[in-house]
């Protein structure tokens, strides 16, 4: 009885902390060519894909793990990880959802992502990724009618090799950096999206990532291509069970926007953050990069980062096409012993390019938060503009909030403006709210939501509500 109670208490903190007891197929432990061949083989990949992976692995062997980041972590033993884990029932691909393991369906239902026909979320097509494989993609037929391709990347490699060959690694090259190269060698699954010329995607596309197996690294790869004049809004959500060990999540996300195309990429990241003493939790070391390849293209990143023991990522925009636009909206919340080193890079290469960065950081408890960003206007990017605003909110004097922007301007016709402030919640605001009958915690929730509003507004409706709740939950227990 007591144990049961403990379990319930635990779940109150992180409601996605359960794990699913399901039989797995795993690659042998460790990282070597055989494991890469195993992954490639089990996915029935063509030779060029295997070559791509092996080339990346060759490169990986020469790279050193970076150590310039603020949050330090104990050394990861890359040989002590599983690089592939999939539910056994996925071995022979189920043809439809009816054949899908009911346990999987149950898991996603519990996460609030029903995959079955009758309960599907309206207007959102979901690709559900469970450990290393994509288990289901909804609404595919409807999308196909418009020529939109939305499928697991492993399927795209087989069915649309031309597109994958052309764009995979074009934004994040094989040789990019330690974690990106590791991902190129061992990535398992992820989503592939192609929006044809002139099509405005009629619904939100979304991927839901779930790490279930222990001792497993999740390395997914997402590739989104918006052809000329198209539009797509893409959402990403993530959760993981509560485990005492730290788990590695090193994904690569590549976006390509051609002439006049627009991609909107939103993330609500809620990986398990570890317990109150900082034990366990996900290491979220993700590489996200968008290329505004064509004229008048636009890429916008919106992120709500509340989970993970360590978040270390910089969703970036390379503004190559003339008149292209990059945007970055971020809320990052750290509590207890969480650490985050996140921000963005805006690289202006084309003429008349514009970028905007709004970053809100909130740290509480013993946590540590860093905004690190780069704005680089090259000498050819005439008439470009950047506006950056980073605000930090601190709660208590055991936590830290840091801002490290790099600002480079090589063009006399371009303007950069950067502002940053650090403060705490004012006593007057708290007093005012409490006087009106709110508890201290509710008052903080309200004020923080106001602080974040600029970013929350950028999220699609369904996500915005969810994110708003999440902001409140993440800060629970940080007041008083």
């Amino acid at each position, binding site marked *: 009885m007591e144990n049961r109670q403990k379990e319930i208490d635990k779940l109150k903190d992180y409601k996605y902390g359960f794990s699913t007891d399901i039989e797995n197929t795993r690659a042998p432990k460790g990282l070597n060519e055989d494991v890469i061949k195993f992954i490639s083989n089990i996915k029935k990949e063509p030779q060029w894909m295997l070559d791509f992976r092996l080339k990346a692995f060759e490169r990986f062997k020469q790279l050193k793990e970076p150590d310039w980041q603020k949050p330090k972590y104990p050394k990861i033993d890359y040989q002590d990880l599983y690089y592939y884990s999939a539910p056994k029932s996925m071995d022979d691909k189920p043809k439809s959802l009816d054949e899908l393991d009911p346990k999987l369906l149950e898991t996603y239902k519990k996460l609030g992502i029903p995959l079955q026909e009758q309960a599907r979320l309206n207007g959102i097509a979901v690709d559900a990724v469970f450990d290393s494989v994509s288990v289901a993609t909804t609404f595919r037929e409807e999308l196909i009618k418009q020529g939109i391709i939305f499928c697991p990347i492993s399927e795209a490699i087989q069915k649309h090799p031309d597109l994958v060959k052309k764009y995979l690694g074009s934004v994040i090259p094989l040789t990019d950096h330690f974690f990106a190269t590791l991902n190129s060698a061992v990535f398992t699954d992820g989503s592939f999206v192609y929006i044809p010329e002139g099509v405005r995607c009629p619904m939100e596309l979304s991927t839901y990532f779930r790490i279930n197996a222990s001792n497993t690294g999740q390395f997914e790869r997402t590739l989104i291509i918006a052809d000329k004049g198209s539009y797509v809004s893409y959402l990403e959500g993530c959760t993981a069970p509560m485990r005492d060990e730290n788990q590695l999540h090193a994904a690569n996300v590549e976006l390509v926007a051609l002439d006049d195309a627009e991609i909107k990429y939103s993330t609500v990241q809620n990986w398990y953050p570890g317990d109150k003493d900082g034990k366990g939790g996900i290491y979220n070391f993700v590489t996200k990069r968008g290329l505004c390849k064509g004229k008048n293209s636009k890429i916008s990143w919106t992120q709500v980062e509340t989970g993970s023991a360590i978040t270390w990522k910089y969703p970036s925009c390379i503004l190559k096409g003339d008149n292209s636009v990059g945007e970055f909206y971020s809320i990052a919340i750290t509590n207890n012993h969480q650490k985050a080193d996140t921000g963005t890079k805006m690289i202006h290469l084309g003429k008349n390019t514009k970028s905007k960065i709004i970053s809100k950081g909130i740290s509480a408890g013993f946590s540590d938060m860093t905004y690190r960003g780069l704005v680089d206007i090259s000498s050819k990017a005439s008439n470009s503009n950047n506006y950056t605003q980073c605000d930090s909110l601190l709660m208590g*004097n055991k936590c*830290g909030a840091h801002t490290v922007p*790099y*600002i480079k*301007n*090589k063009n*006399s016709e371009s303007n950069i*403006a950067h502002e940053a402030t*650090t403060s*705490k919640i004012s006593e007057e605001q708290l007093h005012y709210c409490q006087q009106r009958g709110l508890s201290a915690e509710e008052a903080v929730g309200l004020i923080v939501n106001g602080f974040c509003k600029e970013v929350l507004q950028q999220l699609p409706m369904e996500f915005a509500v969810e994110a708003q709740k999440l902001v409140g939950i993440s800060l629970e227990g940080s007041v008083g």
Partner: protein
Amino acid sequence: MKEQLQKDFENTIRNLSLSQKDIEIKKFSLDSFINKGFPNRREEDWKFSDLNQIINKNIGELSFYNDYTSTNKVDTSVFVDGLVHNKVVFINGRIEKIDFDYEKKDQIEIIDQSEIINKFENNNSLSDLNSAFTNKSFKIVLKKGYQLSKPLIIYHTTNSKIWSKNINLRLDFELQEDSSLRLIDLFNDTSEKNFLNIFYNFDLKENAILKNYKIDKIENKNIKYSFNNIEQNKNTISETFILSSGSNFFKNEVNCNLKGEHSSAFVNGIFSLDKNKHHEIRTTVNHLTENTKSYQLIKSVLEDSSKAAYQGKIFVNSDAQKTDGYQLSKAILLNKDSEFNAKPELEIYADDVKCSHGSASGSLNEDSIFYLMSRGLNYNQARELLINGFLLDVVEKITDSEIKNLIKNMIGIKE
């Protein structure tokens, strides 16, 4: 470079009367420098200015040995007119004159401390180079309650006798309780292609006031590095003003440790660069206790293919509640080849603080130019007026009116 360093080091210590222990310490610094070499862009603090590359490109082979046995003639024509002042004169790195004619002799103590080498907290290799090769180092002590009646000007003069040399200087200042010092560093160079490496240490006791103005205005081809470390106790004020303009390369670093309550630090700077000059200011303000304040304002005007960088850091530790930290950098790029890089950094561990920074860079405001031209000014006049006004903002921050006027005259800013 290693053989050169060792050879020059042997020559240098031969001319100094040092104890075995001091030689050991100097040797240790030398080894540490040989090990690290000149800072390069792989080091975070030197990301925007790769000194190793700059020295290789502009000077090539440096020699580190300086013959200080013969005296240099002090050229009085370089002395500042119209401002009565005390003087310290360095010529080619050799101290030629220390003159406190206008002060009470018993209130100022000058200690020759060549033998004592205290380590700087700055862990870059240039402090090792400095420790290894400085030949004479003085400590200037201002006694309790004494306020210098006239400002002190330190003349850093180099002439054409030296070529491809490295010159290392260091000075220590102790400002005892309630004392105050106005200090101007004036760089007068007629030499070319030398590397000057200057370290100052200031220790401000309770209620002391330090005002330091660094003026690098005269056109020259030297490469300079200057590091100011300022320790601040209770109720102290430090004001640093940097005019960065004349040298080929100049990096100024200022490190303020606000250790006592109600201490405050002000750092203001102007970059006014043309040709292919490359200058940098890096500041670190450490707020270590409650109720401390810092203010920084840096403005740049960049012509031709010049480059300026500003790295400013405000650090607030968890005890330093009620900190007030402010930092602003603005740059005007006048040419398509000019470049401005900034890294304004906040590192904050306390919640009851007010810290902010801002940075902006861009072109001259066309609307303002249009406005002035419509009032009858020609383009160049309008441009000059705007730039003057832009820079005047920083000069106006100088709290000493005598020196403010001197600096205004020097850079030709009209009101």
